[in-house]
């Protein structure tokens, strides 16, 4: 059994690599010939069959702001370790990190022709972007599920490294990629369809063989005809709130949104507003909140007659780890108020 161990490279962000939080989210890719952070748990779960030969780390904002260039840099560092397999994350519900893990795995498969796997929360935007091309195992919303997911991630990774066939998503526990495969069964299609139909009529559970993809796209509305008469509303998921955060909007996983008057305000300053967002370095937004909600420029445009007017309130929530269900609910409620207020169109800014 003294076979060669599979060589694994592990990808992490600055936070899980224990370099720092948001203030370090801008660090460029770096590599270390050692096991780092969650790599320790992963190493234990991989056992004797594989060895983590290196860890490649990149700051989440650095990656998110230049995804193509960052992918290429990360890939070069990964290549130097001559791995057999790459494991990224887990990213849980960290959006930029999830997107980075997906991008790294996709690039590893495409450019290096090596197997790769990652894990994240199903609502992480990285899931939707990369599930078609990358094996993604589902995790809970926070790092509290680390212990549970690492053994699964390790077992799946070893299967990939061994070149074993990967079965369907339900049996292997990864997020469905929407790929159809032909398989042999002992019953003809008509019979299987009848069984499903009968089960459905009886109200019994059944499993479709062809789940329809859930496309929820909303068609764009017609453009604004006369900007000089239009009322434009400002909305942000970047967490800009009145100073002191009077509504106590959570720094992450927001359960509500805030509505703040713009009456008499010519711009936003560190005296009047601040950010409640816990998912990015707040220094720049706190110094000048116009960098997230561009009130100063909107007032200029209003005075110059380029737009009719700025709507008298702006709306804000924190998009960090906020559930899709909550975000949709906030969006619908905000839209209802904007329509009642006679708003023509909306500028929504995100960090």
């Amino acid at each position, binding site marked *: 059994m003294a076979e060669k161990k599979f060589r694994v490279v592990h990808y992490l962000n600055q936070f899980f690599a224990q370099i720092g939080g*948001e203030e370090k989210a801008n660090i460029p890719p770096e590599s270390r010939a050692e096991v780092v952070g969650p790599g320790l748990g992963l190493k234990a779960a991989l056992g004797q069959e594989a060895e983590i030969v290196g860890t490649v780390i990149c700051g989440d*904002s650095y990656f*998110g*702001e230049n*995804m193509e260039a960052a992918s290429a840099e990360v890939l070069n560092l990964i290549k130097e370790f001559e791995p057999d397999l790459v494991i990224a994350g887990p990213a849980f519900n960290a*959006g*930029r990190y999830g*997107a980075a893990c997906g991008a790294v795995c996709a690039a590893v498969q495409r450019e290096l022709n090596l197997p790769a796997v990652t894990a994240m929360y199903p609502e992480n*935007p990285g899931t939707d*972007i990369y599930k078609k091309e990358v094996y993604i195992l589902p995790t809970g919303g926070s790092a509290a599920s680390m212990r549970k997911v690492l053994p699964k991630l390790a077992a799946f990774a070893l299967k990939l490294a061994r070149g074993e066939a990967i079965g369907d998503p339900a049996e292997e526990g990864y997020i469905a990629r929407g790929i159809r495969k032909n398989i042999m069964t002992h019953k003809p299609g008509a019979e299987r369809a009848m069984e499903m139909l009968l089960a459905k009529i009886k109200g019994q559970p059944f499993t479709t063989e062809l789940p329809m993809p859930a496309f*929820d*796209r*909303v*068609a*764009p*509305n*017609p*453009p*604004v005809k006369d*900007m000089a008469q*239009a009322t*434009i509303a400002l*909305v942000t998921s*970047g967490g800009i709130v009145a100073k002191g955060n009077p509504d106590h909007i959570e720094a992450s996983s927001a359960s509500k949104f805030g509505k703040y008057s713009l009456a008499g305000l010519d711009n936003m300053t560190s005296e009047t507003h601040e950010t409640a967002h816990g998912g990015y370095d707040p*220094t*720049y*937004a706190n110094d*000048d909140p*116009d*960098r*997230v*909600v*561009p009130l*100063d*420029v*909107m007032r*200029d*445009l209003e005075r110059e007659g*380029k*737009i009719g007017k700025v709507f008298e309130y702006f709306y804000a*929530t924190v*998009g960090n780890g906020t559930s899709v269900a909550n*975000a*949709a609910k*906030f*969006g*619908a409620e*905000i*839209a*209802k108020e*904007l*329509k009642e207020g006679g708003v*023509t*169109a*909306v*500028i*929504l*800014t*995100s*960090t």
Partner: protein
Amino acid sequence: MVKEIERAGLPVVHMCTVVPISLTVGANRIVPTVAIPHPLGDPELPEAEEKVLRRALVEKALKALETPVDGQHVFEE
């Protein structure tokens, strides 16, 4: 949020830095911005120049709102 605002019948432009995320959440009019912690600014610039940059981005967003699109569109330069 952006999708629900659109669904309610209001044209909406999404200004953000991570365009792939905007595409996946279903925004139709997208204007890429400067950086995650300061989408509409650049702390490296002197204040006046920073405002010029911000104005250019907002004007691009208004232009996007005035432009008919028939699906997702990223307004680059």
